[in-house]
Each structure stands twice: as structure tokens, then as C-alpha cells.
């Protein structure tokens, strides 16, 4: 008994140890979902069509701005199926053909595809060519048939195609060769065999083509000129009437082309409304008899009565959105109208010829954080009492998608998360009274029960029910989704900025949205018509002992796409999501430099460079200015002008010499420049180290007890240039014409520390810079393969600090300050390897203290994330490493990098449309948090060198406890036994 119980912990220890030695980085099947989460999104919906097939589940098919076609469950909003088309395959239109196929037109109207609705499989695909580039229009008539074949009419690339709905075969096509003809609408009046193509030629000519739908024969071609020209947008009010605006936006033109005769009716907008206030624009809609125009202040709904007579039916200054018309019964078409009123939205469903009567009128409380309604799609159903019911799908300003039915939000999807532009991580509050949000606090009994179950599992005594219970317990562990800081730093908030301008805080434990905030500065407003969110910076990170201060982030945005548009800074509390402050700047922002200084409230100093090369300091406090003045002469930065191939270095000069005195504004000067010859080099990639990266040690001990010193400088820039000819697609040039030059440039002095040419190589280049090495990925045209190269840079000026006596006597130069103005003594080592995949993004793991070995995280073309040990990219690898090198862990050189299937971080999942990989160190040194984003989001924890500093999550404490108890009992028993024996001996 004693021996056995002694043995159990020992074996356990041995087992633990042994398992940690095996080089398995992968997960076991039952570990999926323990530390990782995956969320699927689709992006902002562009167009939605409802599948009204009687059989099967109700669904809506959507196309999005992320080039996704998806089928969503109408009851819950879940994705049935989803296809992500390539980034150059933009969807122009979708529709439903024959009730069971989704027809999509994409790639500027050159690819037409048909997808099976129930399972999303592609049925056919056809390529439509044409003589010139043009607007692409898709029309799926319901009852147009050519020899029992349902027809799809596509206008694209200056050609009209009729395509069979069954197999995608082009039945006929017709070219529109007129140079300047721009088609606006393709109309097929129901019940006829005619197709009208209307559009504009030159600037002032309206053209109408009447075409026989059966064979593509041109029946009639009419044109009419209107002297003051047109705005390009038209609104279709009936199958033979359109409404357009003249080029000044002040006269409405009703154009009717009945029986092939074109006639204009002019109506000045001022005749309809007293105060039109500026030029109007037509809102795209297709409601029969009614159209809408929008002026600066109002949205005006106008009805067309008979022969070009117009009548205003409603004039509103609320934000209004209209859906397309939906035929509900013979001759009746319904449409939905959504208006904002305070915190509510009013939904009205009307019949097209009866403006005043509402089929449905509902008000729904709407979260202010969602912004305005951008799009409305209407669908009807038959209620239980046989009357018409309506549901609408609305797309909000923050790109979320909501389904409204019976005055309530049935479901909502946060699809803004499909387009993340920047990510930063923030801690969580420390657990205190009132802060703890965890719902379930374990009591001792539950804790014991759980561990007993685990123990059963470990000893393989568990029944299938127990196994299921263990699994669900592990997945639901309330520990990981608590709202407080944990000891290991695994629980954090990921603060993400989306393209819509909304900030989300995601909990790393389960990926739920903790808060979301639509920035006031990113709302479209009168002063700022097209705001763009740019970047996210950590503004204030309180010391981890400061309990009462909340960290905050800085969001930088600007009004409009060009760099001199005025910028807006917003400060957001990361615990609550409240916008603390917002500053509208007078200057633009070209570059933001977070400085390595913080003031007494832990606010980080930021330098903003505007388009006139002035530097502006934030925060604008005297304390910040004082800190800044102290370091004034030590601040350098660089700028890359990649359009003309110049990299420049800058420093601060003096206060701004403008007419307005601004003590936080500084003039700058150029210190250095690198000019790449425009005929032979073009910048395609620049990479620097992450600002917050921690390097544990400068020394690197190599095989024969020798030391190499890493050249660790925060001011290194990796630049890759290619031959201008070779900057196109892979394979567009011969290897002789193509080369890639890699540079390491010191950004303080502009020194080129290393420069190497890869002949026959071509971009795109993806690179990652960490510590003293850079890894980059490119295509090798000679070998017809992708290649990855590594450059490591070592400092030679410290190389002679190897003598122990020198160190003891302090005669070393390890503590002397380094000036980059000294001539650098560096050596570089590099090596190249083949790599099978093309790459979408590369990142590197980062840990709290930088001790743990590094892994490269490679976003592959298959939208997965592959972890590759940095040891494979070590320039010291050789074909036959010596014994000493082998012991150091140098892997024998191979020509290509291994792709081990188990080392996919994303295991079986795909992060569709992968764009970026972000790594955040946890507090536990061995662990790093990885967040990959694209259309989907994926998060996991990684331990590149295994979790050497903690017990695994499924460590059985109960087993340990049991063992200790057993040991104590054994000691007790053996003690009693020996006592008794001794007594017996003595009595002898």
C-alpha cells in the first residue's frame, strides 16, 4: 500500500514531464473551443433577395460589400451557407431565378454564376465579354421565356446578353457600340417580348433602344437631346417612364418612351417646393408612380400623375429610407419606408398608389449606437388570419443587419465586425466588490464534483454522460468569461475599430461584445460628409496598481479621403465604452507617432504630423510640453513616399512660425533622404518592429559557448523594392527583368545597414520584423516557387565583451549609451527557403518578457493561420550541423520549410477573408494571445514553448489531493504498524 501510494504521484510527475517533451503543438479534439473562439460574419449587406419557395426553410440571400454571398435563416439570422468571392470579384447584382437558384453578377459584369439555394453549390458559371467597360445591370424577368428556357438579361461591358437560366448558355447578345453610351436601366415590361435599354450618350442625349427579347434584334433606336444635360441617376416610375434630373439638379425631367416615342416633361423643383435649398439628387428606388429626391435639408416624395404631372406627397426632414417595391397581389405593389424620430424608427408599409393609407405602421426602439438606417428590404408573408404580414430587413450605418417583424427586432447581426481596420488590447478591471460580474461563483461542493468528474475521466472510468458533462463544463467554464482581470492575463478586452466607424470591445474569453460605441466623430454630419476611421492607439494605460483609473484608447479619424482633411481625435474609456472627449483638429493627419513618454497620469504623448509637415503634440498640457521639450532633440521619424520612391528622415526644428501662436505645434526639417532610382526600383513593402515589443536579452549564446550580440534598435526599417516592371502579377515578367532588393535602414541617420538583391524574385512581399531579424516572403520566378528569407543583424561593437574578467572588472562597454551617429559595426546573416503557400499576412508571437521562443504566424491563402517555429528560419542552419549545434537546437538545413498539419493554429476552422493577425502578450510568460481577423474572427491562446510556467487547465487537482490524502493515510498506517511491531519485538 505504501509503495503504491508513493508511486502514484511519481508516475504522475513523470507522465507530466514526458508529455511536455513530446514535440506536439497541436490540440486534441476535445480541446477545441476551450481557449479559442471563432465568429462568422458577412459584412455590410448591399442587396438582399428573399427566397419565397414554399418548401424548405425561410431564408434570405444577401450580397455584401465584403464580396460575400450568403444565405441566412430568416428566423434566427444564422448563416446557412456562405461564399466569399475574391477581392477583385466585386458583386454587382444578385437575384433569384426559377425560384431555386441565386444568380450573381460580379467582376464588373463579366462573371455570371448560378447557385443552388438549399446548399449553396454552384450550378453554372459563364463569362460574359464585351467591347468596353460599362455599368453592369442584372435583370431576371419572371416570365420571359425563349423556347421554354427562362432568360436572364445582363447588360455588361457594353453588350446586352440573354443567358439561359438552366445552364448559363448565352442565347444571344447585342453590342452597343456607340462610344459614349452609358446604359442606366434595362427594362422588360411584364407580359411583352420587348426589352428597353435606356441610358445617356454624351452629356445631353437620352437614348432608348427597343430590343426583341426572343432574338436580340434591334427594333427601334430613338434619341432625344436635352440641352442642359443630365445627372446620371434615373428613377424608374413605370415600365415606360423614368425620372431624371438636369445637370444643375434643379429641374426634374419626366421622360416617357411609350411606343418608342421619347417625350420630355420639365418641372422645376422650385415649382413643387418653395424652398428647395440647393441641388437635389434622386434617391435610387423602383416604386411605381413614386420617386424620391433629396436636397440638403429635405427628402421629398413625389408622385407622377398621368402625363408627366408631378405632385409632392410628402416632404420630411427626417432621415428616410425606402425599399424597392414588392408585388403583393394583382396590380398592387407595396414598399417600406423607414424614418428616424429620436431614439425610435418608424416603419410604414404602403401600397404604391395610395400614399396616405398604411398597410402597416410600427415604431421600434432602436439603439442609438447603430446610427441611421442605410437600406431597407421588404418581404411579405401570410399571417395566420390569412392577411398580409410584412417583415423588413434593415442595414444600419454601423453595418449591422436587423430583421423587423411585428414591431420588434427579431434578430440582429453585428456585421460591422467583418471589416476591422485596427485592433488594440486592453486589460480588464481588478476584481473588487461591485466589479465582479461573474454569474456563477463555485461553491466547494461543485468544485469537488467537477474535479471528481475530471478524475473519473482521467482514470477512464467515466460513462459517456460523464464525458459529455466534462466537455460542456470545460467549454462553459465561467472563469474564462469573467469581467475581471485574471492572474495569468488571459482575460482581456480586444478593442476593435471597424470601417463603419464603430468601436467594439470583445472579451477574449468567449468573444462576446462587451460594449460597442458608434463614435460621434464618425457619424456623417453636415461638417463632415465622409468620415473615415484611421487608427486606434492606446492613449492611457494606468499602472496595474491604479485601481480607480480606467484605461482609454485614442481613435484617429478624418473627414474625407485626402490626407489634408481635418482630423478628429476621440478618447474612449475601454472599461465602459464611453467617449470621454473628442477634439476636432484644424489640421490633417498624415502620420501618428506614439512617443515613448507618458505624463504623470500615464497618458502617452503622441506626435501628429500633418500634410504641411508640421508636428503637433498631444495631449496639449503644459506637463506634456515639458516632457517633450526635454526630449526635443532626440525625436526622429521617417516618412515613406512610395509613389515616387523616396524615404525621408525628419527631426524637429522649432516652434511653428504661423500667424496663430500654437505652442504645441513644431516645424520640422529633413535630415536624410534615400532616393530609389525610379527606373529600377519601386517600394512595395516597409516594415518596422512593433513599438511595444520586449526583448529579453541582447546576447545570444551560440554553439561553442560563444556569444553573439543582437543588433537591437527600435529605429530599423525594412524596405523591399522590386523592379517597376515586376510589380504586377506573378508571371508577368521574365526572371531576367525582375528583381527584389531588401534593405535595412536606420531611421535616425538614414544609413543603409544592409542591402541585398534577389534576382528573379517578384512581389508581393509580406514581411515581419522582430528583435534583430526580419522574415520576408516573395515569389522566386526561377524556381517557380514562393520563398521566405530571413535576415539577422548582429552588433559587432559589443562582440569583444566575452572575457569574464572584463565583465567582472567593469571594463566592458555594455552599459555605455549607444549613439546611432557612431559608425555601426554590424554583420548580417541571411538564408532563404522555399515555402509552399502564398501568404496573406505574417505576424510573430509576442510574450510578456520576450523569453519564450518565437513562432511565425502565417496567414495562408486558405485563410488559415499556420504557426512556424522561428528555428526553421535561422540563418545558422547548415546541412550537417555539428554536435554542439545540434544540442543548441539548430535544425539541419532543408531547402523548404515544413508545413506540419498539426501546427495550424486555426485547426479545422477558416478565417474567411483573412486580413490581419494580431498578437498580444498575456501576463504569463509562456503564453501569447492571437487574434486573426478578416470577414471572420478567430482568437486563441498559443504557447510556443509549451506552458512551462503553469499547470494545464485540465490538471486534476482532485487526483493530487487524493494522492496526498492517501499518502498521509499510508504514513499513518505504516507508523502504527511499525509501532505495533516494535512493541511486539520489545515484548519478546
Amino acid at each position, binding site marked *: 500500500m505504501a509503495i503504491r501510494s508513493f508511486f502514484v504521484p511519481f508516475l504522475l510527475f513523470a507522465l507530466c514531464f514526458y508529455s511536455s517533451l513530446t*514535440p506536439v503543438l497541436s490540440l486534441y479534439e476535445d480541446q477545441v473551443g476551450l481557449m479559442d473562439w471563432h465568429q462568422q460574419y458577412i459584412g455590410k449587406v448591399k442587396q438582399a433577395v428573399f427566397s419565397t419557395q414554399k418548401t424548405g426553410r425561410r431564408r434570405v440571400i444577401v450580397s455584401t460589400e465584403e464580396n460575400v454571398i450568403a444565405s441566412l435563416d430568416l428566423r434566427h439570422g444564422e448563416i446557412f451557407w456562405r461564399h466569399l468571392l475574391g477581392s477583385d470579384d466585386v458583386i454587382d447584382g444578385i437575384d433569384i431565378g426559377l425560384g431555386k437558384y441565386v444568380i450573381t453578377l460580379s467582376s464588373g459584369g463579366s462573371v455570371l454564376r448560378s447557385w443552388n439555394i438549399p446548399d449553396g453549390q454552384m450550378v453554372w458559371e459563364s463569362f460574359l465579354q464585351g467591347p468596353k467597360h460599362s455599368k453592369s445591370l442584372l435583370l431576371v424577368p419572371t416570365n420571359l421565356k425563349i423556347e421554354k428556357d427562362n432568360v436572364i438579361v445582363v447588360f455588361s461591358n457594353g453588350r446586352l446578353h440573354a443567358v439561359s437560366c438552366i445552364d448559363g448558355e448565352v442565347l444571344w447578345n447585342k453590342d452597343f457600340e456607340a462610344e459614349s453610351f452609358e446604359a442606366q436601366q434595362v427594362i422588360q415590361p411584364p407580359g411583352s417580348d420587348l426589352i428597353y435599354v435606356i441610358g445617356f450618350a454624351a452629356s445631353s442625349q437620352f437614348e432608348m433602344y427597343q430590343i426583341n427579347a426572343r432574338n436580340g434584334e434591334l427594333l427601334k433606336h430613338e434619341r432625344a437631346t436635352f440641352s442642359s444635360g443630365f445627372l446620371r441617376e434615373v428613377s424608374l416610375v413605370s415600365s415606360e417612364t423614368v425620372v431624371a434630373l438636369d445637370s444643375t439638379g434643379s429641374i426634374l425631367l419626366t421622360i416617357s418612351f411609350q411606343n418608342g416615342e421619347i417625350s420630355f416633361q420639365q418641372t422645376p423643383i422650385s415649382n413643387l417646393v418653395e424652398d428647395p435649398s440647393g441641388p437635389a439628387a434622386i434617391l435610387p428606388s423602383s416604386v411605381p408612380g413614386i420617386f424620391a429626391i433629396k436636397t440638403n435639408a429635405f427628402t421629398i416624395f413625389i408622385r407622377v400623375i398621368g402625363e408627366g404631372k408631378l405632385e409632392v406627397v410628402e416632404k420630411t426632414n427626417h432621415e428616410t429610407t425606402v425599399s424597392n417595391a414588392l408585388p403583393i397581389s394583382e396590380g398592387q405593389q407595396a414598399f417600406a419606408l423607414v424614418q428616424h424620430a429620436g431614439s425610435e424608427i418608424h416603419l410604414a408599409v404602403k401600397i404604391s398608389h395610395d400614399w396616405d393609407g398604411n398597410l402597416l405602421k410600427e415604431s421600434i426602439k432602436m439603439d442609438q449606437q447603430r446610427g441611421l438606417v442605410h437600406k431597407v428590404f421588404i418581404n411579405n408573408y401570410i399571417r395566420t388570419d390569412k392577411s398580409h404580414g410584412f417583415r423588413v430587413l434593415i442595414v444600419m450605418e454601423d453595418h449591422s443587419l436587423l430583421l423587423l417583424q411585428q414591431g420588434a427586432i427579431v434578430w440582429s447581426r453585428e456585421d460591422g465586425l467583418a471589416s476591422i481596420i485596427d485592433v488594440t488590447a486592453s486589460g480588464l478591471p481588478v476584481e473588487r466588490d461591485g466589479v465582479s460580474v461573474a454569474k456563477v461563483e463555485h461553491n466547494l461542493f461543485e468544485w469537488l464534483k467537477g474535479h471528481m468528474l475530471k478524475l473519473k475521466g482521467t482514470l477512464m472510468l467515466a460513462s459517456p454522460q460523464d464525458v459529455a458533462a466534462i466537455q460542456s463544463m470545460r467549454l462553459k467554464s465561467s472563469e474564462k468569461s469573467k469581467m475581471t482581470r485574471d492572474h495569468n492575463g488571459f482575460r482581456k478586452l480586444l478593442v476593435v475599430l471597424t470601417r463603419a466607424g464603430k468601436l467594439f470591445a470583445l472579451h477574449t474569453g468567449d468573444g462576446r461584445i462587451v460594449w460597442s460605441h458608434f463614435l460621434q466623430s464618425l457619424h456623417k454630419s453636415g461638417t463632415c460628409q465622409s468620415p473615415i476611421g484611421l487608427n486606434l492607439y492606446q492613449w492611457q494605460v494606468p499602472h496595474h496598481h491604479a485601481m480607480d483609473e480606467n484605461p482609454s484608447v485614442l481613435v484617429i479619424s478624418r473627414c474625407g479621403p485626402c490626407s489634408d482633411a481635418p482630423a478628429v481625435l476621440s478618447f474612449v474609456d475601454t472599461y465602459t465604452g464611453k467617449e470621454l472627449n473628442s477634439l476636432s483638429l484644424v489640421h490633417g493627419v498624415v502620420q501618428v507617432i506614439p512617443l515613448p513618454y507618458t505624463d504623470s497620469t500615464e497618458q502617452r504623448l503622441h506626435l501628429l504630423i500633418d500634410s504641411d509637415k508640421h508636428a503637433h503634440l498631444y495631449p496639449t498640457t503644459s506637463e506634456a510640453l515639458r516632457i517633450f521639450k526635454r526630449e526635443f532633440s532626440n525625436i526622429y521619424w521617417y516618412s515613406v513616399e512610395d509613389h515616387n520612391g523616396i524615404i525621408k528622415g525628419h527631426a524637429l526644428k522649432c516652434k511653428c512660425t504661423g500667424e496663430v501662436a500654437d505652442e504645441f505645434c513644431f516645424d520640422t526639417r529633413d535630415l536624410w533622404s534615400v532616393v530609389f532610382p525610379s527606373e529600377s526600383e519601386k517600394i512595395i513593402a516597409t516594415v518596422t518592429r512593433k513599438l511595444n515589443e520586449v526583448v529579453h536579452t541582447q546576447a545570444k549564446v551560440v554553439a561553442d559557448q560563444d556569444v553573439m550580440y543582437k543588433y537591437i534598435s527600435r529605429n530599423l526599417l525594412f524596405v523591399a523594392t522590386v523592379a517597376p516592371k515586376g510589380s504586377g502579377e506573378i508571371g508577368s515578367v521574365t526572371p531576367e527583368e525582375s528583381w527584389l532588393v531588401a534593405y535595412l535602414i536606420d531611421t535616425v541617420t538614414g544609413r543603409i545597414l544592409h542591402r541585398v538583391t534577389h534576382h528573379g524574385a517578384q512581389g508581393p512581399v509580406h514581411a515581419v520584423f522582430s528583435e534583430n531579424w526580419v522574415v520576408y516572403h516573395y515569389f522566386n520566378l526561377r524556381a517557380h516557387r514562393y520563398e521566405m528569407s530571413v535576415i539577422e543583424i548582429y552588433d559587432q561593437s559589443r562582440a569583444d565583451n566575452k572575457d569574464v574578467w572584463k565583465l567582472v572588472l567593469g571594463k566592458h562597454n555594455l552599459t555605455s549609451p549607444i549613439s546611432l551617429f557612431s559608425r555601426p559595426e554590424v554583420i548580417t546573416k541571411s538564408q532563404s527557403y522555399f515555402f509552399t503557400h502564398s501568404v496573406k499576412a505574417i505576424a510573430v508571437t509576442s510574450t510578456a518578457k520576450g523569453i519564450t521562443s518565437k513562432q511565425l504566424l502565417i496567414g495562408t491563402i486558405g485563410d488559415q493561420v499556420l504557426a512556424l517555429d522561428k528555428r526553421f528560419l535561422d540563418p545558422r542552419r547548415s546541412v550537417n550541423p555539428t554536435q554542439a549545434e545540434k544540442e543548441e537546437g539548430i535544425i539541419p538545413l532543408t531547402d523548404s520549410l515544413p508545413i506540419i498539419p498539426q501546427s495550424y493554429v486555426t485547426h479545422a476552422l477558416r478565417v474567411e477573408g483573412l486580413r490581419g493577425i494580431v498578437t498580444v502578450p498575456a501576463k504569463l510568460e509562456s503564453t501569447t494571445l492571437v487574434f486573426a481577423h478578416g470577414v471572420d474572427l478567430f482568437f486563441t491562446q498559443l504557447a510556443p514553448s509549451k506552458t512551462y510556467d503553469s499547470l494545464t487547465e485540465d490538471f486534476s487537482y482532485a487526483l493530487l489531493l487524493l494522492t496526498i490524502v492517501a499518502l498521509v493515510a499510508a504514513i499513518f498506517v505504516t507508523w502504527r504498524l511499525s509501532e505495533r511491531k516494535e512493541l511486539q519485538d520489545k515484548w519478546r
Partner: protein
Amino acid sequence: MDTIKVVAAIILTIYLFPFLSFGFQSDELLVDDEEFGLEGAPQPRFPEPTSTRSAPVTTATRKRHSDLDSDSKIEFSLDHAFGDSDFSPAGTFSARIKTWSHGGQTLTKLRFSRNNFTSEEQKKFKNLLESDDFYRIRLPSNVLSPPGRDFIISSVKARCLPREGLDEHFVIHLEGVNVLAVNYGSPGSCSYPRNLKLPVKWSFSSYTVLKNSEQAPRAPIFTEEILGGENGGGEVVQPPERSFWAKYWMYLIPLGLIITNAITQAMNMPEEQATGQVPASAGMVQRGPSSAARRR
């Protein structure tokens, strides 16, 4: 060989110093082998960073090339600026352009003549030293049609330059006849904090290095090996072979314990038997003192 060159250069400079003291001091160029080796050599080696002080070298190889290819002489000027002042001429680089038979052009035989500071410039430079400001230089980005697309600028804190005289070090990165970048600074280290030190002599000693791009080593290809015998498993990393003890110590220790345990038990068994048969034997003797003490 290098040391001889360096010594030669030093001797040369020392010898030339009094000679040139009145006007400007012509200091050279340095012509690294790599500039010539690049064209043919598949794998140029690293430029030796310390060999920059070499004297002008004329080699037979160069002669041979110049016979084959046309050769022309060009000059381009170096401008300097003190702090934020405008640029003014500071010296002239002269070089030969070698046009290769395949059309490429390279710069060789670079010589540099530095104008000495005028008294006004000396004053400006002193001001720079006092305010710890930047001394800036610039070169055209194309030596054939200066200034090319733009000037190449480089700067250094003025306090880095003074030593005995004023020491400067140029590394000119070239791509054919285009100057990509120039790294300008002191030839040695520039310690921080920078102390104000005026030069003893107001004359420059300049060192110049031309650098062209290196070619990357090609990725190794081991086709034979892969075809040979590793049948795809070549990518799997073999863990280093460890000794028997390193591999199995975790089994050996418990095994040892078991054995010792068993041995002690086995030892006890005969002992017990022995004690049972012969009461006054070893066991008794062992406990001798204690029992004796008790009985006393």
C-alpha cells in the same frame, strides 16, 4: 595585405599633410574590390567594413576591363549646409564611368577633393558645435545628370566630426549611375552624451566607400536527397539523439527505488527469521544499548 595597405595609406597621409596644408587636401576614394567583382562573381562577399582606409589601388584587372569597355570621366559636387542654412558647394567627387559591353554603367575610381572651410564657414561650424546642431551634406541622385530626381541628403550632429582634425566618412550606395543613399558620419564612434570639442586643425580627412548591392545567396536545392531515400519524411525534425540515461531516467529512478525497496525487504525477511530462531543475535546486539539503559 590589408594592414600593409592601411599602413601605406597612413604613411601617405602623414607625408602629404605638410604638403597640402595651404589649399585643399585631396583625399581619396577607395575602391573596393567588390565593385569590380560584382559583375562576374556569383556570390560577392561582404564588404569589409574596416578596409575603408585603403589607398588608391590600381590593379591589373581594372586595366583589362577598361580596354574592353568605354570609359569616361565625370564630376559631381558635394554641397553642405550648417544647420538649416542653404546648401553651398563643399567639394567635388570625380570618378570614371565604365560602360560595360552589356549596357550597364558603373562608377569607379572615385576621388574626392574637399574644399577647406573658409573663415566664415569655420564660424558657422563653431556655432553648430556649440548648439549641437546638424551638419548636412547632399549629393545628386544621378551623377550623369545632376541633381537627378532629387538630392540625397544626409546629416550628422556636428559634434561627431571633430577629432584631431575633422574626420568624415562617406558610404555612397550606388545603383549603376544612380546614387541611392549616402551615409555620412564620423569614421569611428560618436559617444553620447556628445561633448563640445573644437578641432585642432580645420582640415578634413575624408574616407569614401562605394557600395553596390550584394546578391542574395540562392536557396539551396536538395532534389537528389528528397528523391533519394527520405520519402517525404525529410521535413520531420529528428530530435537529437540522447543518451540512454537521459532518455529513460524517469523509469530508471523508480525502478531503482523498487529494487532497493525489495532488497531491504528481502534483507529484513531473513533477519526476522534469524531473530526468531536465534534470540541473542545481531538484532539484539543492535538494540543493546537502549534496552540496557532501560533495564538499568
